[in-house]
C-alpha cells in the first residue's frame, strides 16, 4: 500500500505493509534509530515519538495510522548533533545515564511542554509514566523538564 508520511519535515512516500509497526518501519527502512524498541508492547516508552505534536508509542502504532500525519522523531528535534535546549537541560542535570531510554523520554517531555509550560512536578511525573528509565530514578529527569518549562515560560515561548 502506498503511504504518505510527513517525517521530521520531509514527505516520505513509501510502499509499505500498512499493518507493520511504525517503530520497525522508522528504524529499519528509514534508519531513524534514535527511537528504540525495548518491549514492543507499549510499556517501556523507548520508541516514543510525536504524532501531530503529541507523544505516542511507535511500537503500538501501525504504519497506516501515520498516513498523512506529522511525525517527529528525536532526529527531527534539532540540527544534527546539536542539543536542543531541552536536551541541554538533561545533560546539565545529569538526567541521562545509559541513554537507551533517553530519546523516548525526551520526546515524552517535549510532547508535555508543547501542551503546557507550567506543569507541576506531579504532572511531569505522570507525563513520564509511560517511559521506563532503569538508571536515573527519574529525579534528575523531572528537574530537567521543570527547568526547561521555566526557561520557555520566561522566554515567552
Amino acid at each position, binding site marked *: 500500500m502506498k503511504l504518505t508520511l510527513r517525517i521530521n519535515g520531509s514527505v516520505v512516500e513509501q510502499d509499505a505493509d500498512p499493518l507493520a509497526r511504525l517503530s520497525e518501519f522508522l528504524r529499519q527502512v528509514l534508519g531513524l534509530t534514535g527511537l528504540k524498541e525495548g518491549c514492543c*508492547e507499549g*510499556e517501556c516508552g523507548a520508541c516514543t515519538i510525536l504524532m501531530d505534536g503529541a507523544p505516542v508509542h511507535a511500537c503500538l502504532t501501525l504504519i497506516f495510522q501515520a498516513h498523512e500525519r506529522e511525525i517527529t522523531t528525536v532526529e527531527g528535534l534539532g540540527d544534527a548533533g546539536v*542539543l536542543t535546549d531541552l536536551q541541554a537541560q538533561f545533560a546539565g542535570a545529569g538526567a541521562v545515564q545509559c541513554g537507551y531510554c*533517553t530519546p523516548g523520554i525526551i520526546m515524552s517531555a517535549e510532547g508535555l511542554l508543547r501542551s503546557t509550560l507550567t506543569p507541576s512536578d506531579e504532572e511531569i511525573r505522570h507525563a513520564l509514566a509511560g*517511559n521506563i528509565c532503569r538508571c536515573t530514578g527519574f*529525579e534528575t529527569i*523531572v528537574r530537567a523538564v521543570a527547568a526547561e518549562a521555566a526557561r520557555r515560560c520566561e522566554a515567552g515561548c
Partner: protein
Amino acid sequence: MEQVSQRIPLIDAAEKLTGRLRFAADMTLPGLLHGAFLFSPRAHARIVEVDPAGALAVSGVIGVWWHANTPQNSYNSSIWFAGQKALADERMFPPVVRHMGDRVAVVLAETEAIARAAVTRIVVSFEDLPAILTPEPTVAHAVAAAGVEEAIYPDPVEQVHFTHGDPDAAFARADHVTEAVVYTPRSHHCAIEPHVCVAWPEPGGRVAIHSPCQSVYAVQAVVAQALGIAADRLHVTKAPIGGSFGGKAEPILEPICALLAERTGRPVRIAFNRHETFTATRTRAASRGKMRIALACDGRILGRETDVTVDIGAYCTGGNYLPGSMLQRLVRLYAVPAERYRGRAVYTNTLPTGAFRGYGSPQIHALGEIVLDLASREMGLDPVAVRARNIVTPGALEPWQGLSLGNARGADCLHRGAEAFDWTRRRSAASGRGRFRTGVGMAAATHINGCFPGEDEATTATLRLTPEGRIELTCALHDLGCGSDTTLAQIAAEVLGLRAADIRITPADTDTCPYDLGTRASRMTYIAGEAVRLAATALAAAIVDTGGQALNAARSEIRLRGGQIEAPHRAITFADLAAWLSVRGTDTPSATHTHRATANPGSYAAHFAEVEVDTLTGHIRVRDYLAAHDIGRAINPMLVEGQIYGGIQIGMGYALYEDAAVDPKTGRMRADSFTRYTLVNAPEMPPIRILLVEEGEATGPFGAKAVGEIATIPVAPAVVNAVNHALETRLTELPLLPERVLDALGQGSSS
C-alpha cells in the same frame, strides 16, 4: 580542583540525547543474517528428536542448529579469563534441557521475522525428567538429578561454613535473642536495552564479536571455551550498553552468534525481545535466610548465627561464589565478636541466576538489617542507636579475610543521616490508627571496592598525547551508563590540567586494550580510577619534560593548567606541543601504568524512609527518603547522586513490587514482560535527599570509593523496616505485595 569534585555532564551525553549513539541493535551490515531461538517449554527433559524440516522449508531460512550439529564443549558463562577454574555445565544447545527457556535450537534467516516464524515449525519431542522447582536443599535433589546426565549435578553446588569467636557462649549469655527468616525474591535487571549480539567473520579465520558486555575479555574467554578454539581467533569489541546492572555480565548470545558467523561466513545478529530477556537470560538469585542475633541489654551484638540458601537456577555460572560473597559482605558491617555462618547455593530447574547490582549484598543485608530491626523493636531500643553501637570503625579488620576496611565511615552516615532526616522525632510520632498508617524505617549497608583479594585485581591504563593535542585513554573500559568514562576522564584531566572533554576514551577492544576484569564488583572508580590517576601522573611528568624543552624552561618552572603548558611569562598549548614534537620527528609522550590493588576498603551507607500504608488495600507508598553515603570523595557529585537515585528506584522495586518468581508447579516464570513485572516509575518515586560523607580513602584516587552497587543495597530493608514500624508487623517476605501486607494485618488482628 578544576575537574575532580565538579558536576560535569557525561562526556557522551550529546550522542545519547540526540539518539545518534549506535547501539548494537541499531547497526546494519551488508548481508546481515538474523537468528531466533527455540526455547525449552519443559523444566527438565531429554531431547529425543529434533526435526528441522519444517523450518528449513521456509523461504529465507539459512539453517537450523541444535545439539546434534553444534560443538558440545562444556563451558561456564561466568568466567573472566581463560583457564579460570569453574564448574563447566553449560552447552550452547544441551541434549538435556534443564529449565524452561533453555536453548533447544536456533534458526538463521535473512530477516528476523522469517527466523522467528520458522522457529515455530521445528518439531521437537521431549522425554520429561523429574524437575526440582523449589530450592529446598535435600538429598532428594541430587538423587532426582543423578543419572540424568553424567555431567555434574552436585547439590548444593557450594557450601561455605565460617565460625569466628564462640557463638554458643554468646547466645548463652545474651540478654535478648531474636530470630527470623527473611525471603528475598528472584529479581530481574530490566535494562531497557534487551540482550543483543552481532558477530561477523574477519580475515585470517577470525570472528569479530560486537556486543554490549561488561568485559570483552570475559566474552573472549567464554566463547573460546564454548567453541573450543583459541581465544585470539576472537576479536571482541564493546558496543554501547543500554543498561546492564549485571544482566550483561555473562555472555549468553555471544557463543552462538560467533559460531553462526563462523559457519556461514556472514554477519549475524541475534536480538532477544523483552520476553526472552526476561525468561532466557539471568536473574538475581532468590534467597531464604535464617538469622539469630544475641544482644546485650544495651544493644551490643554479642553473637550472630546465619543460615542462607540461595537458589542459583539450572546452571552454575557464578552462583557458587554467592555464599562466600554474602559472608564477605555480612562481616564487614558490624563488629560482631562471635559469628557462625552457613551459606549454600543449590541448583533448581529454573532460569540460571547471575550478577545483579551487589552480587549477594542485597540479599544478605536485607536479612541482616530486617532481623536487627526486629531485635531493636523487641528490646525497645532505637534502631539507629543499635546500629551506631555496633558498626565498624575506621581501620577495623574484618574477621573472615583479615582485611582492613579502610576509612569506614558508616557511623557518620548513621549520625548525619539521622539528624538530617529528623529521625528521633519522626520515629516517635504515632503512626495513627486509621486506614492510612505512616512509619519510618532505616537500614545500613556496606559493599566492596573491587575484587581483591579474590582475584588479581589490576588495571592497566595508557594515556597518550595525540597529534591534535588531546589525550587518548586506552584501557579495556566498559561504561555501563553510570558515567565511569566521564569519571575517569575527570581524574586524568585533573592531573593534566585539562577538561574532561579533552580526554578521548577508546571503547574496550581485545585487539588493542590490555587485559582487564571489566566493569564489575564496584571496581571502576576505585581500581581503574587509580590506574588512570597514576598513568596521568606519569604522562604529566613526560609532558613537563618535553614542554620544558619546547619552552626552554626548567622542569620546576613548568605547570600544566587550563590546557596549557606554562612557564613564567610564556606558555604553549598541548596542541602546540604536539605540533612542535611532530615537526622534529619525535613521538608524542605517552605513559602506561598498571595499578594492582592491595586493599579492599568498604563503602558504607545509611538510608532512611518514610512510608504510608493503606490498610484497606495493602498498598504502600514511600513518601520521603534520605540516603547518606560514605563515598570517600565524590569525583563527580552529580553522577554519584545519579547512582543513588537510580539505586533507590531499583531497591524500592525489590522491596515492594518486583518478583520474577517461578511457578513451583510448572516451572514457568510468571513475570515475563513489563506488564507482569512491576517497576517503580516516575510517579511512585518519593522526594529524595542525599548526603555525601567525604572523609577520603587513602588508597582510592583523590580519596574516592565506590557507589554504584551500594546505592541500591540498603533500600529494601529500609523500606521494609518502615512498613513494619507503621503496622507493628513482622513482614519478612519480599516483595511486600498488597496481599502479604493484608495477610500480616489479618494475622495481627486474629492473634
